[in-house]
């Protein structure tokens, strides 16, 4: 970690870093030029496959492999969508990339468009990010004015335009098929898969959805090569620079760029300055609100890459790390998150629509000191009915169309199982006695 220099956030805080002029004097668009002029689509896909880049939106799926699912000989148009819906509680990294270096993200989109032969791409940005959407519009206008977007970009015969599309307040639109439905002007109801978006996505055409941070990595991979990228971080299988979002009870909350696989304790105690008011650590939510909570003893030596966090019984997800100190009331935390999911459930699948509401009602009862002993098992039963049996070695057995079901079932289950004693403190019989 000591000799690591930020790559994606190198220009954060520099005056003018969001402008095209600034970006161009810092190697900007060289990688895109190279991809457009000197590389075939296959070559772009191959170098990204070889780099081992995994999607930074949460699922960690290999980016190059995702691209390779796009049927090459399809006569339909292919679409790239940049997922800037950033709505997983605990996650605030994509907003930083957009605010400080929008051109890095746009350059990544040009490279991805070359890889999948896309000529119209979208940035689906959450509706609340009004300032960020305007900033992207400005950056795209700069590109159009300089023939870096539009007809024949960089003097080639490759056409590409990019549109900014604002969401309107719906967590589920971060799920890629919900996002596509929303882009089509409908409710953001996730689709049954297959067909996967690579075959039938936006307007039934082959579509790739990539996260902002994933795309921001691409110019660096093209310029420096797959081996360079593979060498960054602790794990050859899960390499690269990674943005970690630290929030909750730390002294210095914020986004920190570090090599993939950095230890969680280093992130908390060194980069984020340790626990607020020097209290003791109780627990950490390691990868956004959907990831099962880990206790203080479970994070010892934990490396923050996709396979390591999975092996610890949670997931790296969006790397939204929420730190909870010893004073935290875990029943309140669990209720807060359950309420979030009940509000954000799209309502399409009964187990999720009804289950999230039930969970919220049961948990609210606890917070009011009216919990009943049998409720603890009832909570587990409801999570099982929403998200299915949970066995990380076998994958999920979800009972809903999209992974939202697991996203609520897993964390709620973990809170109840790991902090059962705190729930017991809220039982109604104890309050009476």
């Amino acid at each position, binding site marked *: 970690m000591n000799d690591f220099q930020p790559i994606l956030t190198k220009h954060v805080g520099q005056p003018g870093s969001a402008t095209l002029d600034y970006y161009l004097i810092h190697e900007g668009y060289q990688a895109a030029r190279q991809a457009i002029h000197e590389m075939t689509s296959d070559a772009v896909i191959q170098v990204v496959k070889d780099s081992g880049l995994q999607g930074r939106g949460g699922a960690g799926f290999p980016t190059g492999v995702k691209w390779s699912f796009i049927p090459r000989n399809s006569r339909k148009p292919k679409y790239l969508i940049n997922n800037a819906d950033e709505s997983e509680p*605990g996650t605030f990294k994509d907003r930083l990339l957009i605010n400080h270096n929008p051109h890095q993200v746009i350059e990544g989109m040009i490279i991805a468009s070359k890889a999948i032969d896309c000529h119209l791409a979208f940035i689906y940005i959450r509706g609340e990010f009004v300032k960020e959407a305007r900033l992207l519009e400005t950056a795209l206008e700069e590109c159009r004015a300089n023939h870096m977007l539009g007809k024949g970009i960089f003097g080639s015969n490759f056409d590409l335009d990019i549109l900014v599309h604002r969401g309107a307040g719906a967590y589920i639109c971060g799920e890629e098929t919900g996002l596509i439905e929303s882009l089509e002007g409908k409710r953001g109801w996730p689709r049954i898969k297959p067909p996967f978006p690579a075959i039938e996505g936006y307007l039934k055409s082959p579509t790739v959805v990539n996260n902002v941070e994933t795309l921001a990595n691409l110019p660096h991979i093209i310029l420096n090569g797959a081996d360079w990228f593979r060498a960054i971080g602790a794990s050859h299988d899960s390499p690269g620079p990674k943005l970690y979002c630290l929030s909750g009870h730390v002294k210095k909350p914020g986004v920190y760029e570090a090599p993939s696989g950095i230890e969680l304790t280093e992130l908390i105690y060194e980069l984020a300055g340790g626990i607020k008011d020097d209290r003791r650590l109780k627990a950490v939510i390691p990868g956004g*609100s959907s990831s099962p909570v880990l206790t203080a003893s479970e994070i010892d030596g934990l490396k923050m890459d996709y396979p390591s966090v999975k092996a610890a019984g949670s997931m790296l997800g969006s790397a939204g790390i929420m730190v909870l100190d010893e004073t935290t009331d875990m029943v309140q935390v669990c209720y807060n998150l359950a309420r*979030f999911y009940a509000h954000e459930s799209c309502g399409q699948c009964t187990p999720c629509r009804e289950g999230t509401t039930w969970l919220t009602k049961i948990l609210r009862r606890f917070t009011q000191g009216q919990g009943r002993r049998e409720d603890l098992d009832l909570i587990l039963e409801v999570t099982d009915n929403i998200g299915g049996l949970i066995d990380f070695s076998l994958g999920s057995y979800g009972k809903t169309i999209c992974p939202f079901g697991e996203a609520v079932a897993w964390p709620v289950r973990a809170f109840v199982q790991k902090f059962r004693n705190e729930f017991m403190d809220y039982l109604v019989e104890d309050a009476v006695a």
Partner: protein
Amino acid sequence: MSFAFTPERKRLFKELVKRYPDKRSVTLPALHLAQEQEGYLGRETIEALARMLGSAPSTLMDTVSFYTMFTTRPRGKYLLQVCQTLACSLAGADQVVDHISKRHQIKVGETTPDGKFTLLKVECLGSCGTAPVVQINDDYYERLTLDKVDRILDKLA
């Protein structure tokens, strides 16, 4: 009261229709344009937009009703949306809500009698590192303290 885009917005709408590969995809951008202009999406607005987008008003309402940012009723001049999800909650979002509520004598979901402020509690605004956060119209105000809330609201009063 019938609805029509201002000439500038009409131009923007036509530009969008040209740029998107199909008309229905212009739904969310068109709804944003209309709500920015009118402050809310009333029945006449929905009907007019449905005609412009080539869909039924009920189909358009199906979309409108799904998204928390769209409103079918007028709201105050300043929409105060306090994030209440975990990081903001840990950082004192409830106190922020209570403070605004007392200051302006309104409950969550209500608008001040002068039509100036509407107070809402919303889910994660994606700004957990600078909690607690309130979004006022298009702008985020971060790392709130009660004093800071007062200063912000004094300026708007």
